[in-house]
């Protein structure tokens, strides 16, 4: 018994032995279970972004976000406290156990690009959902549809400002003028770099926005309302 416990302990990186980590894990699991239990049906053409296309792929999306450089910064600072802030403390207590990416659990973070490919495949579904909600009644423009469209756009901005995309579209090249379509490739790279500067913002904003829309649709179902902005 003690032996197995020691083996498990040796396998887990020291970061995983903190109460912060377990509370984080607990909250994530709670949210996932809640989404599974309290499923919501399509309501007046609105499809909840969490169920688009299905909640079962949510773990893959979660992996994309967990290996994202923007969220890595946040959870390394606030969940694992490595480091909590940039002040150089004299005691260094919080940093002592740090092993970083040298532990195999954290090396998964390097697979970010594959999760990114997967997320790009998922993106069209969000546009499709927005289309479905507009198609529910073309003579009305409803707030929910606008929000779903905004959500799809923000998610696209988040995915396309990813650092792995940056590497893919030119970050791994030293010389643009040596390639075909050099100027346009450089222009795309510059545009992506500009978006990339705001990657952290897109990451958090898209996360908050998707939760907001989920709550909004749940509220519409609970109170049977719909907000119509315009009759055409």
């Amino acid at each position: 018994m003690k032996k197995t416990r020691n083996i498990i302990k040796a396998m887990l990186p020291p970061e995983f032995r903190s109460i912060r980590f377990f509370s984080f894990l607990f909250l994530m699991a709670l949210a996932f279970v809640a989404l599974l239990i309290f499923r919501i049906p399509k309501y007046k053409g609105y499809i909840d972004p969490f169920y688009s296309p299905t909640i079962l792929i949510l773990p893959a999306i979660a992996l994309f976000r967990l290996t994202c450089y923007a969220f890595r910064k946040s959870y390394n600072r606030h969940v694992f406290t490595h480091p909590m802030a940039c002040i150089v403390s004299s005691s260094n207590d919080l940093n002592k156990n740090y092993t970083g990416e040298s532990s195999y659990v954290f090396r998964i973070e390097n697979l970010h690009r594959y999760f990114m490919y997967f997320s790009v495949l998922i993106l069209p579904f969000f546009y499709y959902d927005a289309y479905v909600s507009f198609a529910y009644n073309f003579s009305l423009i409803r707030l929910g549809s606008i929000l779903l469209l905004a959500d799809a756009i923000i998610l696209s901005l988040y995915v396309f400002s990813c650092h792995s995309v940056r590497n893919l579209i030119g970050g791994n090249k030293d010389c643009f003028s040596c390639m075909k379509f050099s100027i346009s490739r450089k222009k795309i790279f510059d545009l992506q770099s500009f978006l990339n500067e705001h990657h952290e913002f897109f990451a958090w904003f898209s996360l908050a926005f998707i939760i907001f829309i989920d709550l909004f649709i749940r509220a519409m179902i609970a109170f049977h309302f719909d907000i119509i902005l315009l009759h055409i």
Partner: protein
Amino acid sequence: MERKIKIFSSKQERLIEYTVPIEHGMVVLDAVIYVLEHFDSSISARWNCKAGRCGSCGAEINGIPSLMCKTRLDSINGDIEVVPMKVFPNVKDLVVDPTDTWRIKKAMPNFKISEMVISKSSGITATKNITLYEYDVTRAQEFKKCIECFLCLDSCHAIRVHKSAYIGPMHVAKAASLDMNPLDSLDRRDFLDKNGIRFCNVTKCCTEVCPAKIKITDNAIIPEKERINDKKII
């Protein structure tokens, strides 16, 4: 108006408090120089340009690695604590010994001009006349702004824990500036991988403290990590 400033003394191994009269626009370095001139002329501190250009005056001001000549006193509330950078061996008071960084610089594969620009005709090796476009060099140029103040090395918690196993953000930026140069033929991915770039967990403290405002993490470390992943994932 007067402010209290505490300066580390290596002889007594503690902070010593001084009270300094304040004028508008004073920086921490001015206060240290005032202490030097009026209270204790034996304090050792380095500075040169007083303009944030030479990178000599780095220290930890209230725990945050900063240039003394660029930190205004009115940007700090309460007492001011000035201690030397802890990542380097202390020489005396605020002076540290960053010799190690030169060793790392020497170990890094140096610029090697690519075959593309060398023409070998009739036994003579000469440089071809090639055009270097601006849009090819802007990326590498950002890292040339580095003033070698070593503040990023001091702020990096990965160095604090793993010591010399990680070369540090400043050197990754240097490697990136060479790697992204279109005329350079070498590849420093293996060098960086062997020298602990994986210890960095992209928490961006180096970017936060860099006085030259280089986006070290976004533009050097992460692109290099991604390039390493191109070659060898996990």
